[in-house]
């Protein structure tokens, strides 16, 4: 009667990327002449690598740079005065959020429309959407605070804010769909479809809301357009903000994608361990037959 080694079983199912490299690792160890190695497994407790550490440092430096320019060197705006400083955070966060959702859509397509259906794409889609939602939340909060300073109100039903709010809720829905359960492939397929539908929705939502708000005479004379009178130093501060938040996004995306990989790997091992346990229960009966 064959027994099943849990490690072998795990290796076979523990995700696309792991399988290949693990085999290579075992093979290379074997080639050093020591025979099949029952190597002690190392458990490096981090999703970081040298690359992400570098990236993390760069992010912190960029953020510091943003603070220095955003709060210090950049001038006040002619109309908005000091409130413009909030835009150096508000505008980058929404741009990066859009980037994140585009990454989600592209990853969803890469998962869905390729024959291999690699789960790595699904995990990237999920991680990116999660980060995007966080960034949109920040956008909405900072936007409200900015609105309080410039318009005097926390919220206005203008096209941009309304669309952003709907964007937020739409991707909350996407994240909820990701948690519906089932196998990894099922989750991936469902999420990929919803991710692509969300991207289809966005122009429709944007169009309808824009058309809607353009028909209404704004009661106040205040300009709801967020672009300040761009002065060189302001533009630079904005640029610094974009750089800083992009670095943050990439750093977060790498970590979260790896974390999702680990979650899936643990899921698989849990399943394999359960299968082994069930087969072990059946063993005595088999021997008599």
């Amino acid at each position, binding site marked *: 009667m064959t027994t099943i080694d849990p490690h072998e079983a*795990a*290796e076979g199912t*523990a*995700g696309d*990327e*792991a399988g290949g*490299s*693990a085999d290579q*690792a*075992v093979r290379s160890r074997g080639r050093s002449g020591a025979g099949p190695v029952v*190597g002690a*497994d*190392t*458990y*490096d*407790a*981090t*999703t*970081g*690598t040298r690359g992400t550490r570098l990236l993390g440092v760069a992010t912190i430096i960029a*953020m510091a740079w943003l*603070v220095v320019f*955003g*709060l210090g060197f950049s001038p*006040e705006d002619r109309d908005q*005065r*000091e*409130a413009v*400083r*909030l835009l150096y*955070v508000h505008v980058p*966060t929404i741009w990066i959020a859009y980037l994140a959702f585009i990454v989600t859509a592209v990853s969803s397509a890469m998962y869905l429309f390729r024959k291999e259906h690699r789960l790595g794409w699904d995990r990237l889609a999920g991680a990116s959407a999660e980060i995007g939602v*966080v960034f949109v*939340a*920040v956008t909405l*909060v*900072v936007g409200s*605070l900015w609105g*309080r*300073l410039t318009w005097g109100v926390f919220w206005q039903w203008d096209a941009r804010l309304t669309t952003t709010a709907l964007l937020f809720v739409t991707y909350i829905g996407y994240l909820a769909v990701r948690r519906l359960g089932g196998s990894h492939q099922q989750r991936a397929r469902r999420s990929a479809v919803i991710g692509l539908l969300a991207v289809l929705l966005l122009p429709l939502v944007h169009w309808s809301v824009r058309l809607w708000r353009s028909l209404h005479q704004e009661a106040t004379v205040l300009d709801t357009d967020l672009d300040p009178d761009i002065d060189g130093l302001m533009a630079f501060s904005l640029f610094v903000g974009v750089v800083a938040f992009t670095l*943050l996004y990439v*750093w*977060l995306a790498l*970590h*979260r994608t*790896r*974390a999702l*990989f*680990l*979650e899936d*790997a*643990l899921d698989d*091992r849990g399943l394999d361990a359960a299968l082994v346990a069930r087969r072990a229960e059946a063993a005595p009966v088999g021997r008599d037959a």
Partner: protein
Amino acid sequence: MEDAGFILGSYALVFGAMGVYAWRALRGGRRLARQVPDREKYWT
């Protein structure tokens, strides 16, 4: 700087929130990484 409290507070809120999210991401990642052998991780 007028409205200094508001603006500094907003920056603090944003960096605080991002920082908390980043820290939780790292911590969750560490917890998971501890349970999976390195040979199965594609980044090691």
